């Protein structure tokens, strides 16, 4: 078996490259750029893919809830569950503090009604077995939802029926020129008998305080006392042991949305006692009822927690941090829901959107889909870009190798006469192409390595949210890719340029 000397081929190849060194340099540069673009693109896509994976893998939906949104007329409000208090039996809820039997059972749904509201606030009183016995009454003042200059007069001590007291002086509205008329135990009391019906929403419920002696009988219904008037405590004026004097204004503030508060009537009880809590609990229990939820898959993150987390993240950005520090908490309460089955995401989302109080959901899968389509866009653009660069590289290599071929065309003719096989003639030129490809590939690899680490450190420092693969993980791929594509390009280019000279 005859053997060909490798050194001959390499010698010829390097001679050819050296003779046309400028062209060789040009083709290395072009191919190098082509490979770098390809590599960057590939690494970008891989990293997007990776972030996609981690996003998709979390199987997480974030449900944004608003538990403090006021109710409108007719809205369904969940009522708090039963309270427990030592020595007391809880019966249910009522809008009447003196009720002995509950209007609503614990956990019932209450249909919000304007007539239960005082100044936009609906109070649910706990109904206890046997009722509450009041030893005397407390006098309390109420601004009826108007912002006051100064503060309201404070609650009185407990007073026995029949005790006299002087009512508080006039109060003054803070922001508008609302005229203070006087105090009344009926929030709906009005100065003008004829104007009684224009505050329609507040009329109707006048069962209490109607029959007390009218010291200053003005207007219709309940009497309106002038500031500083003497008032004798009467059990008839009390609701739940409290006699409330409402500030009566010439022009009553009107409310179209309502908030719900709970009142245990002075009993120390345990249980959720804010409407927000009740609503959150309701949402949570509804969430628990869904099928596609992983074990312990529902985590409540309060707006305060979110705020704190964001603050921690932004510690190094004083201006952003200050914004969070000073302003109102811009974050809503959220439930972070981990689901079991990725294919049921859409159904789950729909179910979530239908739960009262969840006003928005954000699905990792959604985000993943967005990034996915971004990825497709990138792939499309870069494919074209790459195709063009690839063609250009091949052309430059064809021309470089052709220079060597033309220079040696006489030699090639002689080789053919002496009986050189095609591959023997072609191999030095192909080797030249391959070496150009190899040099470009190796250079591209190291340049990309450097660039990647540089960009990575930059991004890692700036944006924590993005996870970037370490270069080590990409190294084999980039190296093999660069070398392979480089060598292939060089080989194809040189094969094209030598083809014509190989005809026997």
């Amino acid at each position, binding site marked *: 078996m*005859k*053997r*060909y*000397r490798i050194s*001959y081929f390499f010698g010829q190849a390097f001679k050819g490259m050296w003779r046309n060194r400028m062209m060789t340099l040009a083709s290395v540069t072009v191919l190098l750029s082509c490979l770098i673009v390809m590599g960057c693109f590939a690494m970008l896509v891989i990293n997007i893919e990776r972030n996609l994976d981690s996003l998709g893998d979390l199987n997480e939906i974030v449900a944004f809830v608003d538990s403090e949104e006021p109710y409108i007329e007719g809205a369904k409000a969940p009522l708090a569950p039963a309270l427990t208090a030592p020595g007391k039996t809880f019966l249910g809820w009522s809008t009447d503090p003196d009720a002995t039997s509950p209007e609503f059972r614990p956990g019932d749904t209450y249909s919000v009604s304007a007539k239960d509201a005082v100044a936009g606030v609906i109070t649910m009183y706990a109904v206890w077995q046997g009722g509450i016995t009041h030893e005397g009454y407390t006098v309390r003042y109420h601004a009826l939802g108007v912002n006051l200059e100064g503060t309201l007069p404070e609650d009185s001590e407990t007073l026995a029926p029949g005790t006299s007291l002087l009512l508080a002086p006039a109060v003054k509205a803070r922001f508008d020129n609302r005229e203070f008329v006087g105090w009344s135990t009926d929030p709906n009391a009005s100065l003008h008998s004829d104007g009684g019906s224009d505050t329609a929403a507040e009329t109707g419920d006048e069962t209490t305080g109607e029959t007390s002696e009218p010291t200053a009988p003005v207007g219709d219904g309940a009497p309106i006392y002038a500031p500083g008037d003497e008032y004798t405590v009467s059990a008839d004026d009390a609701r739940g042991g409290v006699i409330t004097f409402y500030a009566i204004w010439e022009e009553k503030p009107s409310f179209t949305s309502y908030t719900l508060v709970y009142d245990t009537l002075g009993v120390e009880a345990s249980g959720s006692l804010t409407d927000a809590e009740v609503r959150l609990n309701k949402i949570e229990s509804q969430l628990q009822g869904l099928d596609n939820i992983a074990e312990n898959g529902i985590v409540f993150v309060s707006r305060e927690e979110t705020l704190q987390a964001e603050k921690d993240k932004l510690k190094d950005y004083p201006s952003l941090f200050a914004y969070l520090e000073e302003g109102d908490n811009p974050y809503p309460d959220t439930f972070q829901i981990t689901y079991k089955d990725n294919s049921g995401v859409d159904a789950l989302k729909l179910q979530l959107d239908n739960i009262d109080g969840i006003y928005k959901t954000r699905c990792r899968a959604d985000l993943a889909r967005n990034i996915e389509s971004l990825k497709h866009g990138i792939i499309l653009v870069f494919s074209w870009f790459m195709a063009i660069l690839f063609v250009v590289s091949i052309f430059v290599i064809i021309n470089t190798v052709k220079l060597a071929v033309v220079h040696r065309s*006489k*030699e090639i*003719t*002689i*080789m*053919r*006469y*002496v*009986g*050189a*096989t*095609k591959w*023997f003639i072609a191999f030095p030129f192909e080797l030249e192409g391959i070496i150009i490809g190899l040099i470009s590939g190796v250079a591209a690899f190291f340049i990309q390595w450097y660039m990647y680490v540089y960009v990575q450190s930059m991004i890692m420092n700036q944006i924590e949210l993005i996870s970037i693969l370490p270069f080590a993980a990409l190294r084999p791929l980039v190296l093999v890719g660069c070398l392979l594509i480089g060598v292939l390009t060089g080989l194809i280019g040189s094969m094209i340029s030598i083809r014509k000279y190989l005809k*026997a």
Partner: protein
Amino acid sequence: MIEFKDVKKVYPNGTEALGGIDLKIEDGEFVFIVGVSGAGKSTLTKLLTREEKITSGSLTVNGFDLSRMPERKVPYYRRRIGVVFQDFRLLPDMTVYENVAFAMQIVGEPKRVIKRRVPSILSIVGLQDKASCFPDQLAGGEQQRVALARALANNPATIIADEPTGNIDPRLSLEIMNLLIKIHRKNKTVIVVTHEKQLVDYFQQRVVTIDGGNIVSDRVGGMFGETV
């Protein structure tokens, strides 16, 4: 053995260079091919080297059927014949030694074989002292001897020389011809295309005369002058 049977060659442009050649050359023969310029002598040698394909007829060389030879076998066929051209066709950036060794390298001859054979071939053509010269440092006759050495490098059975003395000082032509005769004595078939009447007459070998693409005479002896 070389055998032309009714070989026609028509070039793609329509020129009929050979119009039905019948010629038989036995192994170990020495043949002069003579004829005026344009007669078709070079075409004949090109058919033998398979540089051109025959248009019709059949051509067999040393058992190779050239009319049916696939492209990939051509190199191996060419290793069995040695060709010398009027213009030497040496590689200018290689020494005499390298030019000869090159032909052996191409066929994958081991270095050690090359090292042994090149000097002996160079001594056949009388250039053992010029091994490290470059072609442009040599006289025309010497260059042609290098070409001849290269043609011999792979020990072919047949040597084909197309006007080997055409570019050489006439006083040195005889020297080349003597070399070819010497090679012929080593039991090789030698085909020499030439113009040189005196040489043909001098050597008294078989002479095939071509005119207008046809063989007009084929005899032994120096009858070159009579036929043209």
